[in-house]
């Protein structure tokens, strides 16, 4: 093996092992920042030694043993300093000895629970949203600060600072390393799911020419979601989110044409949808429903995308079911965006006039002011109703509101199609 081969192998081992390593160490040292430092030290030791000694048979155990030795050194050093100060005296000393003795037992334990605790810690609501995302990708996704920066289109020092501050906040606020229980669990879990879905959507919105770490975020999010589903199998919304992401990911390669042009869902070649991911998504959705989670916001969104996944052709789409799922979603998680989507589904199921009623009501919604998809949807429905002059104006308005050049072109094309229809009324 050449040195660069070894470095690639170390990189791979880090991807596989870092979350377990950091989670296990956090439990022992009770400080996520220190745990990460210890894990990084072990990684540096591997980079020094493995090119000569070769990659050990059980690289994860090697890294853990190395980090453990560093942890013991740190403990002993602290202990010596504190002995000198003679402040805490005997009590502290025996506590430290106990901690060292516990360490072997602790390290050999099942890591699953530690990883779950680490997820909840990284996504703690005490942290700003961007910090939760960065910390989760760093500690659980094994991404470097540079990769996170490139993926979210922000400068690397910004990400580094967010992570440092986040770790400091967790330590200062004494956020416990534990899985929340009882009434707290639901809110904390929804913060975790939000972070994962945010990562997924960031990847999903990546376009041609983007750095490849961006689309790869979909994969990172899916991986985190799948891990979470195994660690918290009783939580229906976790399976709902996984189902939603698996099915959306199944369409990734069908949604752009050979020239990079976006292809709308109903125009996609369904033969290119990934059946393995669809099957995984549908079975995750079944799990959510079996756990009586059919009415959770993620499960409902998954059920909607599942309707599309099940239809062999666009014409076979069960729009009535989709419309009723949107009704349920609007009740479970009300939002004007959900209403707009509901309007489109209602129009498909019961005719454009019914959809237009909902859209017209939304034009008064302040939060949708400046949202180009509202006039775009309205234009589409007006066109279907044969009200071409109004449709043309709405397409133009939508075009003037979007910042996406490709989308603007598409909207202007549709507006021009009705240029001849304009006559005074």
């Amino acid at each position, binding site marked *: 093996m050449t040195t660069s081969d070894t470095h*690639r*192998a170390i*990189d*791979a*081992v880090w*991807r*596989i092992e870092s979350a377990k390593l950091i989670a296990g160490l956090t439990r022992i040292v009770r400080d996520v920042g220190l745990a990460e430092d210890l894990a990084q030290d072990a990684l540096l030791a591997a980079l020094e030694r493995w090119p000569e000694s070769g990659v050990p*048979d059980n*690289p994860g155990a090697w890294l853990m043993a190395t980090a453990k030795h560093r942890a013991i050194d740190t403990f002993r050093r602290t202990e010596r300093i504190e002995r000198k100060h003679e402040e805490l005296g005997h009590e502290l000393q025996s506590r430290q000895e106990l901690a060292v003795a516990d360490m072997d037992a602790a390290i050999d334990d099942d890591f*699953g629970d530690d990883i779950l605790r680490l997820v909840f810690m990284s996504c703690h609501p005490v942290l700003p949203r961007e910090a939760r995302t960065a910390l989760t990708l760093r500690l659980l996704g094994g991404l470097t600060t540079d990769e996170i920066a490139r993926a979210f289109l922000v400068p690397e020092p910004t990400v580094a600072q967010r992570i440092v501050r986040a770790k400091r906040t967790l330590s200062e606020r004494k956020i416990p390393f534990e899985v929340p229980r009882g009434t707290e669990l639901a809110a904390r879990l929804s913060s975790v799911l939000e972070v994962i879905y945010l990562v997924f959507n960031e*990847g999903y919105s*990546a*376009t*041609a*020419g*983007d750095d*490849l770490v961006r*689309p*790869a975020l*979909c*994969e990172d999010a*899916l*991986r*985190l*979601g*799948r*891990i979470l589903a*195994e*660690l918290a199998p009783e939580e229906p919304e976790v399976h709902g989110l996984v189902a939603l992401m698996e099915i959306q*990911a*199944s369409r*990734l*390669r*069908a*949604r*752009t*044409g*050979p*020239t*990079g042009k976006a292809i709308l869902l109903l125009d996609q070649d369904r033969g290119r949808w*990934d059946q*393995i*991911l669809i099957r*995984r998504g549908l079975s995750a959705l079944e799990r959510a429903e079996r756990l009586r989670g059919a009415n959770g916001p993620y499960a409902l969104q998954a059920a909607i995308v599942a309707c599309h996944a099940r239809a062999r052709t666009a014409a076979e789409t069960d729009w009535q079911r989709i419309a009723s799922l949107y009704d349920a979603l609007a009740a479970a998680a009300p939002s004007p965006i959900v209403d707009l989507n509901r309007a489109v589904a209602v129009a498909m199921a019961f005719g454009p006039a019914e959809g237009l009623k909902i859209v017209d009501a939304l034009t008064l919604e302040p939060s949708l002011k400046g949202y180009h998809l509202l006039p775009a949807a309205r234009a589409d429905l007006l066109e279907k109703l044969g009200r071409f002059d109004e449709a043309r104006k709405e397409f133009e308005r939508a075009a003037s509101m979007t910042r996406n050049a490709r989308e603007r072109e598409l909207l202007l094309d549709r507006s021009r199609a009705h240029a001849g229809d304009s006559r005074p009324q």
Partner: protein
Amino acid sequence: MRYMTLYKPGTENDAPTEKEMAAVGQLIEEMARAGTLITTDGLQPSSKGARVRIDSTGKFTVIDGPFTETKELVGGYAIINAKSKAEAIELTKRFLKTMGRGESEIRLMQDAPAFDAASGPPSGKAAQKPRGKTAARA
């Protein structure tokens, strides 16, 4: 990126022992928990299969199993999710360690949705085909 790994045990598939089943079961669970395993299955003995071939004139030949050259026989497959070829190799090593024999062929999947070409081998076909590239940023 998605890789397909084809496992070649080196001999005709015997029914796995209970111990082997348990070990593989545990590994599968572990990989599922790590979010890296997408799908996997084992294959029954080649006596239950066949080979179908077409020649340049369009004529078919069908050869029923079992096949004699057992070295190349595929015993099972897995589709795994890995960030790089190095990670796929590392994950495959863990699988082979559990099996204790044989070899696995690791191939980058052509259709890897949205993520192929990211760090695929520069000489690999998957990284060169334009379809792969555009799909990569879809």
